[in-house]
């Protein structure tokens, strides 16, 4: 199964009791806004979910694995996502531990 934007729109409409058109506009705007900021190289931090960051990659030498030819891989910017601890624990069905609890365990 795959969750799509359409499914998210339906969930939002159900929660807000709004029209499908309105829900679609809102959900679209959420992703549009994130895209705009990331395009500008800005970080997007969503607590409980994770951080999206734009990382600068330096140019490096590489090789075409098919032809064995040496090539230069140019420097570029790539988008990376680091899931939050809450998210990582959720997908492993482990309870979320608070900072206070973690510190207590260590001592």
């Amino acid at each position, binding site marked *: *199964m*795959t*969750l*799509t*934007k359409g*499914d*998210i729109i339906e*969930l*939002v409409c159900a*929660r*807000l009791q709004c029209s499908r058109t309105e829900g679609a*506009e*809102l*959900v679209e*705007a*959420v*992703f549009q*806004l*994130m*895209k705009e*900021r*990331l*395009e500008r*190289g*800005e*970080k*997007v*931090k*969503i*607590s*409980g*979910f*994770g951080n*999206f960051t*734009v990382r600068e990659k330096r140019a490096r030498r590489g090789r075409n694995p098919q032809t064995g030819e040496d090539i230069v891989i140019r420097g*570029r*910017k*790539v*988008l*990376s*996502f680091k*899931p939050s601890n809450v*998210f*990582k624990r*959720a*997908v*492993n*069905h482990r309870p979320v531990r608070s900072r206070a609890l973690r510190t207590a365990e260590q001592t």
Partner: protein
Amino acid sequence: MTKRELVEELGRRFPYCSRRDLELVVHTVFRSMVEALQKNDRVEIRGFGTFQLRQRQGREARNPKTGAPLHIAPKRVPFFRAGKELRLRVDGRKPDKA
């Protein structure tokens, strides 16, 4: 941009929506994605990217402080792959429009 700033910016674009409703929208969007991955479903957002789980094998490691060996159980981690359009835009290249 943080989650709160995202809600504030939505407020400027949807001045007729209450702050509470906009918070609910943002919460529902991210919550639904976490729940989908909990069920090992994929998340596919056109024009943005896809999220899916990757399996990590268990391994033997050491506590860096005490040097005691410990076993790290296999686990799953959320993995994001940016869609083509976003990937190009982040790199300052405009995807060619048909």
